């Protein structure tokens, strides 16, 4: 691992300012993804800003009847929060579908949003990867792409966003609150927070170099029946091949977001409108323009069948 300097900060303003003034600085919170990548030489920060002392580890109620989740709330605590369990069970289910108990005890809300892809070519530093080394090419396009994106990718990158939590948050219309070194704050809808790869797959989100996530906000509870279905190669502790986050109301309307399909949590509001017509109608719209490889074409019927199983009430 490359040598780096380290500082602990006490406020979000200090953290943003440290990011702004220090070349090659990165925020570290839980560290479960960043440290792994640093050991492999995929991430090589010159300076780490430890934000664990920021106190942003609470879940507060908002004036609009929703919740404001501090960026340092650990995955375990988010999943176990009584309000989230009762009013946003989709989020609890998604968080619990990911990682292991040890990792959820450490991993944070903001860090989970920012976790990097598990594309095998991103991880293999001997291979070209436009995300890891811009301009080097994409080994996945002609390589083993079973786990990779069927939609939203580009000729430069077909890596998938790997997480579960953000898929539920996308269905719940969550927004990301941030602060910059000059003290300005903003709230970014989750869909706009993530960028598609286009010609610059190294740019994965909307954050500026000196911008720090402080909270994730959830609008007032939407009710309905909420389910998170994750299909993977093992029963536990594996990334999704396909995951489906569904909110379904008694009149047949609802929302659906997919994980494992694209470079970001995938939801098409026009597809939500077709929910009463069934899974085929939804996935036809949600995945219109999909461009799968031979290896991952199976994900399209798999996503449709996973959704059908939920919509037709045939259990999990």
């Amino acid at each position, binding site marked *: *691992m490359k*040598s*780096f*300097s*380290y*500082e*602990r900060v006490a406020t979000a303003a200090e953290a943003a300012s*440290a990011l702004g*003034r*220090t070349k090659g*600085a990165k925020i*570290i919170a839980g*560290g*479960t993804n960043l*440290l*792994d990548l640093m*050991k492999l030489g995929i991430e090589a920060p*010159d*300076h*780490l800003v*430890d934000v*664990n002392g920021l106190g942003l580890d609470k879940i507060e109620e908002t004036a609009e009847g929703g919740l404001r989740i501090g960026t340092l709330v650990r995955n*375990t605590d988010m*999943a*176990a929060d009584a309000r989230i*369990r*009762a009013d946003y*069970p989709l989020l*609890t*289910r998604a968080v*619990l*579908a990911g*990682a*292991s*108990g*040890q*990792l959820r*005890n*450490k991993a944070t809300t903001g860090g989970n949003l920012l976790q990097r892809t598990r594309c095998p070519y991103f991880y293999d530093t001997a291979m070209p990867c436009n995300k890891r080394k811009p301009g080097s090419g994409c080994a996945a396009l002609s390589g083993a792409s079973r786990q990779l994106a069927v939609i939203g990718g580009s000729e430069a990158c077909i890596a998938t966003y790997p997480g579960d939590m953000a898929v539920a948050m996308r269905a719940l219309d969550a927004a990301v609150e941030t602060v910059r070194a000059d003290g300005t704050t903003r709230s970014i809808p989750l869909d706009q927070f993530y960028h598609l790869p286009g010609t610059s797959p190294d740019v994965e989100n909307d954050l500026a170099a000196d911008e720090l996530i402080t909270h994730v906000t959830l609008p007032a509870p939407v009710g309905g029946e909420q389910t998170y279905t994750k299909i993977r190669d093992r*029963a*536990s*502790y594996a990334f999704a091949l396909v995951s489906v986050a569904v909110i379904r109301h008694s009149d047949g309307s609802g929302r659906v977001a997919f994980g494992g399909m694209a470079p970001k949590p995938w939801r098409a509001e026009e597809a939500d409108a077709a929910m009463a017509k069934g899974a085929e109608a939804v996935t036809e719209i949600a995945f219109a323009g999909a461009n799968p490889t031979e290896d991952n074409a199976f994900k399209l019927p798999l996503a449709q069948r996973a959704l059908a199983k939920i919509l037709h009430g045939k259990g999990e």
Partner: protein
Amino acid sequence: MTDTTRSRSSVTMTVNGTEQQLDIDNRVTLLDALREHLKLTGTKKGCDHGQCGACTVMVNGRRVNSCLSLAVMHQGDEVTTVEGLGSPEDLHPMQAAFIEHDGYQCGYCTPGQICSAKSVLEEIRAGIPSHVTRDLANVVMNDDELRERMSGNICRCGAYANILAAMKQVAEETA
């Protein structure tokens, strides 16, 4: 101003009840600090990437992968390793149950398994749900819950059935 020239930091943490002050390279993981600097070699290095769970220890009462954490990030923390759970003369109930039920073969993953197993029972009793919890409002102790919650600890010898038996016994004894 940020000092970007220093590649070492000092950190004070309590390990198994004893305060420890370390002046270490920023790159040292909690796992390596425990094993190489404090000579607590009970905690094992398996994959070193958070996938196998051999390095599991408790930090402030919660199980974590010590390989995926920098030692310098543990200022003021309370760390408990397998050495802090019990000794050969005075075994922790989970250690005794692993011996009784043969919850290991080669033993390499065992310290991590024991730290995890102890925490799993505590997590269930604290009402923390898991992927297999049917009713999120009512977390119960059963085999499916124990199996799912131990998925972050790999045993290449395949002692899983006996680890489950050991955990069930401790759960019943302490119910």
